[in-house]
C-alpha cells in the first residue's frame, strides 16, 4: 500500500512509541502496582519469547516474506532439546545410545530450528512457493513431528541448570531478558550496518531491482528464513526452560502474536520497510496490554474486545502522523 510505503520508519516508530507511552501512563495512574520495577522485569520476561520470534519475523517480513511456522518450530525444537536431555537418543542400527549434555541439547534444538528454516527457504526459492504456503505447510509438518517425537506427552524434569537459561537471573536481570537483548542488538546491527541487512530491504522493496543490482536474491531469502528458524529454536529453549517442561502444544498461535507485534511496530507487510526497534516497541505494547488487563483484573471475556480495540488505536496513531499516500 502506498500509505505504508511513504510512511517513513522513523515516523512510524515515534508514533507507536507514543501509543506505548500513553498506555504506560494510563496504567500507572489506574494501578499502583504497574510502575513497580518487579512488574517491569515481569513484563520484559513475559515478552522475551514473543520478542525472540518477532525479531526473526521482522527480518523475514522486511525481505517481503512471512513465516507462519514459528510457533510450531518453537514447539519442535523445545521438545527435541528436552527429549535429548532427558533420554538422549538411541541409534538401533548403530547399536549405540547417545546421551546429551545441556550444551549438546541446546545446539541440537537450534540445529532443528535452522533445518526447519532452511526447508522453508528452499521451498520458497527453489520450488518458488509463496512464503505463506511454504511456511503454512511447515507449521503442519513441525506440529506433526513434535507430536510424533513426544507421543503427545510433555517432557518434564529437565533440572535447574537447564532451567537457568529461562528462569535464572544475572546482575538482577532475568536471563531471558539478557538473551533476547543480545539477539535484538545483533539483529538491529545486521539491519542497519551490514550489506546483508541492506539486501534484505532491497529484496523486500523491489525484488527485481535488487536482482538487477546484482543482489543474490535467492541466497538472501534462504539465509533470512534460516535465521528465523534459529530464533524459533532459541525461543523454544526459552519456553521449555521456563516451564521446566516441553509441552507438545507449545507455541500454538504464536505466529499471529508475533506478526501482530511486528506490524504494530510499524513494519509493512508489503516488505522493504520496518525496523527492529519498532518491533521491540510492538512487543512492549502487547506485553504491557496483557499485563495491564490482568492488573485491572478485567474479565477474560472483555480482555479480547479491549485488546482488539487497543491494537486498532495503536496502529491508527501510527498512520495518523505519517504522510498520506498519494493514492490515499
Amino acid at each position, binding site marked *: 500500500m502506498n500509505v505504508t510505503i511513504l510512511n517513513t520508519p522513523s515516523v512510524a516508530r515515534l508514533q507507536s512509541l507514543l501509543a506505548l507511552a500513553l498506555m504506560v501512563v494510563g496504567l500507572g495512574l489506574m*494501578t499502583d*502496582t*504497574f510502575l*513497580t520495577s*518487579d*512488574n517491569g522485569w*515481569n513484563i520484559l*520476561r*513475559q515478552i522475551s519469547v514473543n520478542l525472540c520470534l518477532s525479531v526473526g519475523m521482522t527480518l523475514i517480513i522486511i525481505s517481503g516474506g512471512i513465516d507462519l511456522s514459528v510457533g510450531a518450530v518453537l514447539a519442535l525444537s523445545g521438545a527435541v532439546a528436552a527429549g535429548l536431555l532427558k533420554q538422549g537418543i538411541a541409534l538401533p542400527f548403530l547399536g549405540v545410545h547417545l546421551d546429551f549434555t545441556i550444551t549438546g541439547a541446546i545446539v541440537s534444538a537450534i540445529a532443528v530450528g535452522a533445518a526447519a528454516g532452511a526447508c522453508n527457504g528452499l521451498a520458497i526459492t527453489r520450488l518458488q512457493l509463496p512464503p505463506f504456503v511454504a511456511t503454512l505447510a511447515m507449521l503442519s509438518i513441525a506440529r506433526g513431528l513434535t*507430536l510424533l517425537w513426544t*507421543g*503427545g*506427552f*510433555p517432557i*518434564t*524434569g529437565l533440572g535447574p541448570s537447564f532451567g537457568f537459561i529461562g*528462569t535464572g537471573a544475572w546482575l538482577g536481570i532475568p536471563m531471558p531478558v539478557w538473551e533476547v537483548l543480545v539477539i535484538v542488538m545483533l539483529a538491529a546491527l545486521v539491519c542497519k550496518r551490514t550489506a546483508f541487512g541492506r539486501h534484505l530491504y532491497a529484496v523486500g522493496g523491489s525484488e527485481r531491482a535488487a536482482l538487477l543490482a546484482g543482489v543474490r536474491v535467492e541466497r538472501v531469502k534462504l539465509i533470512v528464513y534460516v535465521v528465523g528458524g534459529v530464533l524459533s529454536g532459541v525461543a523454544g529453549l526459552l*519456553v521449555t526452560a*521456563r*516451564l*521446566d*517442561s516441553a*509441552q*507438545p*502444544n*507449545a507455541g*500454538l498461535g504464536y505466529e499471529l502474536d508475533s506478526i501482530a507485534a511486528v506490524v504494530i511496530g510499524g513494519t509493512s507487510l508489503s516488505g522493504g520497510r520496518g525496523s527492529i526497534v519498532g518491533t521491540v516497541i510492538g512487543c512492549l505494547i502487547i506485553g504491557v496490554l*496483557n*499485563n495491564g488487563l*490482568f*492488573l485491572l*483484573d478485567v474479565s*477474560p*471475556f472483555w480482555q479480547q474486545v479491549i485488546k482488539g480495540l487497543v491494537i486498532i488505536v495503536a496502529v491508527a496513531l501510527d498512520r495518523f502522523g505519517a504522510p498520506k499516500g498519494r493514492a490515499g
Partner: protein
Amino acid sequence: SRGPAESTPAPAPGAQSRQIAVVVSTLNNPWFVVLANTARDEAQRRNYKVTIFDSQNDPAKEAAHFENIVASRYAAVLLNATDAEGSVANVMKARVANIPVFTMDREINSRAPVSQVLSDNYAGAVDVAIEFVEQLGERGRYVELLGIVTDNNTWNRSKGFHSVVDRYPGLEMIAQQSAEFDRSKALEVMESILQRSTSIDAVFCGNDAMALGAYQALLSAGLAGKVKVFGFDGSDDALASIAEGKLTATAMQYPKTMARMVAEFADRYLQGERNLPARLPIHVDLVTRGNIGEFGEHGRRGE
C-alpha cells in the same frame, strides 16, 4: 429429510465390520492422549481395528469425523465429546445409521449414546474444595485459574469448587482468570497476578498443567511452599509434584479405567448384549500427600 449419508441403511448387527472409531476432543492435552491410547489398546486387545480421530476441540470437525465414520460403516464409536451440547447432533448421525456410540469422560445431554461412562468433575471439584477449605483453615485469599472458558468441564469444576468454598466468607477470591488449560499461559497469568499482590494463600487450577505452570510462577516469585496449589486430573507430573510437596492436592480422574470400560462395553454390545448401564459416573478421587501412595499413572497403582 436427511442427507444421503444419513439415510443409508445400516447393515444388520453381526454383519458389521470390526472397525472401532475412537473420537477424542483433542490430542493437544496429554490427559486425552492417555484416554485415547488406552481406549485404542483395549479395543485392539479385543481384536478390533481402531482409528483415532482428533476433533481439535471443534464440534464441527467432530461432525466431519462422524460423517466419515458413518460413510465407512464403523462398528462402534468410542467418543470423548468436544461439547455436551454441540456433540449431540453428531451422535445422532451415528445413531441414525445404527452405529452405537459410547461416551467417555464428558457426558452429552442426550439419550442417544448406548452408555456414558463419565468422570464426575463436579463431585471431584467438591472433594478438592473440601480439602482446600481444610488446608486453608476456612480463611485466606486465593486465586482461581479457569480452563478454556468455552469448555464444559471448566465450569463443572469451577461450579463444584465454588459450591463449597463460597459458603466460607473468610475465603476471598482475589482473581479469577483463564489460562486455557495451558501450562505456559498459567505461568504468565500467575506472574501477572502476583504483581497485583503476593499475599496469596492458595491457587485453585482447573487442571494439573495450569497448576504446574502456576507453581513455576510462585517458584520464581519465591513463594513456593508458602502458597498451596490445587490441581485437577491426576497427571503423572502432578502426582510427582504432590509427592515432593510442590502441589497440595489434585483430583484423580481415571482416564484409563473409563477408556477400558467403554471399550469393553462396546465389545459386549457388539456381541449382542443389551443391558449395559446407560450412565455410569466414575467417581473422581482426591489425591493428597497422604494417600499419594495408592495412585499410579492416571489411576490406582497396579492398574
